[in-house]
């Protein structure tokens, strides 16, 4: 199964409500047969620009990352479901490759000397 990463921006809320939103989201994922690997928070921050969603203008939001494995077929349905969630400001699902070593070669091999 391919591995995906869901970047979630939720409305700036109190802690129990945020927890409830996250719980809802993760359960929606697991319902559709995904295996959730990890859940990370990037804190509550100011959004880079004001976002209007569901008739509300957001200035701050909570950023969360969800690693999961799932079938690609259920992703459109899931994104659709997230669009309808009032508390979710923005969601993006990206492919997360399993291999870390090997092909990715950085141009900056070693730190350049005194320049």
């Amino acid at each position: 199964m391919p591995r995906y990463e869901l970047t979630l921006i939720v409305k700036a809320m109190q802690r129990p409500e945020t927890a409830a939103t996250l719980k809802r989201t993760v359960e929606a994922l697991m319902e559709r047969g995904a295996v959730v690997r990890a859940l990370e928070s990037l804190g509550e921050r100011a959004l880079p620009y004001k976002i209007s969603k569901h008739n509300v203008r957001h200035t701050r939001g909570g950023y969360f990352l969800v690693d999961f494995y799932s079938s690609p077929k259920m992703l459109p349905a899931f994104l659709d479901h997230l669009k309808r969630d009032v508390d979710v400001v923005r969601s993006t699902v990206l492919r997360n490759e399993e291999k870390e070593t090997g092909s990715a070669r950085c141009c900056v091999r070693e730190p350049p000397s005194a320049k």
Partner: protein
Amino acid sequence: MFHVVRSPAPLFRLLSPRGGVLVEAVRGRKSRNDPKAKSKADRVKLPPRIDPEEMVVLKERYEQYDLVVRALRAEFKQEIVRRRYENEVGSRAEERAKREAEEHRALMEWNDRENLRLRQLRVIRIQKQVEEEAKKRAEVVSLREEKRQSVLREKEKEILQLQEEVKTFITTENLEQRIEEALDNPKNYNFAIDKEGRIVKRTALP
């Protein structure tokens, strides 16, 4: 009647003696059946006059000469015939046959020896080739086997790793706990880097 002929056919020129011209009997204005001329009506053609004594002497000499030449000719002819006869049938024939048989045998022997030698070389060569091939095939097989083994080992390692990681996955039971944990430890992936390559991970959140 005897005309000097500048013959149109150049072949005659070639056969004629150097500097000479060809004289041949050519009918001039008259053909065969034309009547004789009046001035030539009484002409009697006589053969050349011969001297009888001269004739006798000449005849004798010619007979002797002829005899000798004929004898020589016959002699030479017979020699040739005899030589040919002896070559095919006769004393020389046997020697020749023997010699040829000998040569034939020698050559056949040489041929056989050569064949034997070459065959031995060939056998050795083919053996070596077969061995080489077998070795190469064995090598290929062993290489493939090794590759397969290594791939298998890789996969096993991955599986084991995954099995370890499975323990950290989120399930319905530890969902709430994990949410609390996540909310308590916000992670920050931002960093700054300068041209010297120094990384700074401590950035302020807006």
